[in-house]
């Protein structure tokens, strides 16, 4: 094989992907950081260099602060729910029976239908007058009258959290399911011989063995929660009174509602930095695998 032929082949085969990626992904990414140091309102207006002023404005912007608080609320509620329900369902459905197989097929349904469908579906389910949620509560004797779950500031954000968990849980069940399957059969059998079964077997034997998947799951919770947009945008638009506002819906409002191009870019960078820091914290918490202490101390 001639050297020039090889080089020419590599260039022609990589060029389409590299060019597309450079122009439409890398370039906007660099620009995103650049835009954030300008005061720039609308496509036609002049850009004015303002240094870090957009950032200091953002940090003292009460609306942006609310979105950060809401994000932390969602992170905690979603995190707790996922870490309880996902391993539980995954453990209960590891079997080879038809029922377990069926559940394994179905639990990803909310994940594969569009987020738009999820949002609209729950808009109907939670409707105060004819939604299935109120109808069901009525049916089992809980009188909710015409409770508006999304309209009441005290229940709006928890309702968003429930909908998000409904949407996301399947993915985490799948993660934990795969991890549990990778635990060697001998370990499971040995645990049963020692008399550990059910919940005890899970806590004492299996849970510590799937350490790395917990880090993956926690990282994905951070990424997915920080990236919530369509759900809130369609379900509540951040209402009532920003009770459900999340960073990305606020960013969208600033960029495309108010044409605050510079300011919204600074918001985007801040949200990105926050996501990076949270992922870093997750890495720290789940840094060391307690099953293999020698790994940490050996180096």
């Amino acid at each position, binding site marked *: *094989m001639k050297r020039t032929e*090889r080089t020419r*082949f*590599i260039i*022609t*085969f990589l060029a*389409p*992907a590299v060019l*597309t*990626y450079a*122009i*439409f*992904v890398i*370039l*906007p*990414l660099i*620009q*995103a950081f650049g*835009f954030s140091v300008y005061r720039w309102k609308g496509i036609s207006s002049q850009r004015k260099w303002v240094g870090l002023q957009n950032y200091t404005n953002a940090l003292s912007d009460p609306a942006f602060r609310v979105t950060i608080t809401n994000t932390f609320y969602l992170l905690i509620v979603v995190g707790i729910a996922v870490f309880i*329900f996902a391993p539980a*369902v995954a453990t*209960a*459905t590891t079997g080879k029976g038809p*029922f377990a197989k*069926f*559940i394994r*097929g179905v*639990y*990803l*349904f909310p994940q*594969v*239908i*569009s987020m*738009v*469908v999820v949002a*609209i*579906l*729950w808009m*109907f*389910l939670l409707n105060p007058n*004819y939604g*299935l949620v109120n*109808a069901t509560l009525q*049916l089992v004797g809980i009188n909710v009258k015409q409770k508006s779950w999304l309209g009441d500031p005290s229940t709006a954000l928890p309702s968003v959290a429930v909908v998000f968990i*409904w949407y996301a849980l*399947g*993915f985490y069940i799948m*993660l934990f399911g*795969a991890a549990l399957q990778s635990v060697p059969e001998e370990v499971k059998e040995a645990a049963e011989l020692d008399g550990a*079964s059910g919940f005890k077997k899970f806590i004492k034997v299996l849970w510590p063995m799937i350490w790395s*998947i917990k880090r*993956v799951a926690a990282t994905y919770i951070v990424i997915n929660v920080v*990236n919530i*947009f369509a759900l809130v*945008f369609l379900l509540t638009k951040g209402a009532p009174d920003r009770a459900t506002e999340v960073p*990305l819906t606020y960013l969208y409002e600033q960029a495309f509602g108010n044409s605050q*191009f510079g300011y919204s*870019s600074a918001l*985007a960078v801040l949200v990105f930095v926050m*996501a990076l820091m949270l992922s870093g914290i997750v890495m720290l918490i789940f840094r060391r695998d307690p099953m293999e202490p020698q790994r940490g101390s050996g180096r």
Partner: protein
Amino acid sequence: MKAIQKFAVTAAMVLFIATVIVPLLWVVVSSFKSSQEVFESPWALPAVMKWSNYSKAWGEAGIGRYAFNSLVVTVGALLILIPMSAMAAYVFAKFPFKGSKFLFGTFLGGMMFPNFLVILPLFLLLNSMGLTDTKLGLIIVYVAYSLSFTIFVLTGFFHSIPNELAEAATMDGCTLNMTFWKVMLPLAKPGLIVVGIFNAIGLWNEYGLAKVLMSEEPNKTLPLGIAHLATTQQFQSDWGALFAGLVIVMLPVLIVYWFFRDKIHETMLAGAVKG
């Protein structure tokens, strides 16, 4: 004791799966009801199957046009994305060169960066090219933002194909170019299908990028269209048709998913754990 425990677990699982399936079934059942039935008795079955909801959703409500747009954009993006990614992945897997690891890493980095960071510069870029509100613009953006994951999965796939086959083809006088299209690409077919289906589902469902780049009515894709119908007053009097629209959006995805679910699980896991 053990029997009770087993019963409790099964009961909990039935309850869990009901919370997933019942809402989805409710949409399907409601799509055959009249608006009045939807309003008055959420749990009841329709008195008569109102198939006209579907023709109304498809025609009057514009779902037919939205579906056509989504189909054009999804298929168009796949037709560019798959060969483009396969070519790059083949080079990454079989023709390492100085800097190829770095380049591959740059592509992988795209899986970590959230889309919201680029949404404004991307909008302005497409706007300056005259590509906002065009199907072509959305297709190009979908290709660009699917490259990372697709190249990642396909590189793994090409790695698993032994070198001997390509070498034999070269011995027989095939150029590198011919070897790829005639020998390697057919061998990679299972990988191409999986990654194609995976991307098809994601692009068919995509909302955020489309929301920013497509604002004019005639070019809207299904997720944009159905969101528009649900949030504007215009169709709020005809719930049945709106539910029919939701069924039209989610049913194709659920059917495709059901047939390929094992492969889809595998691909999702590969992306999640290694990526």
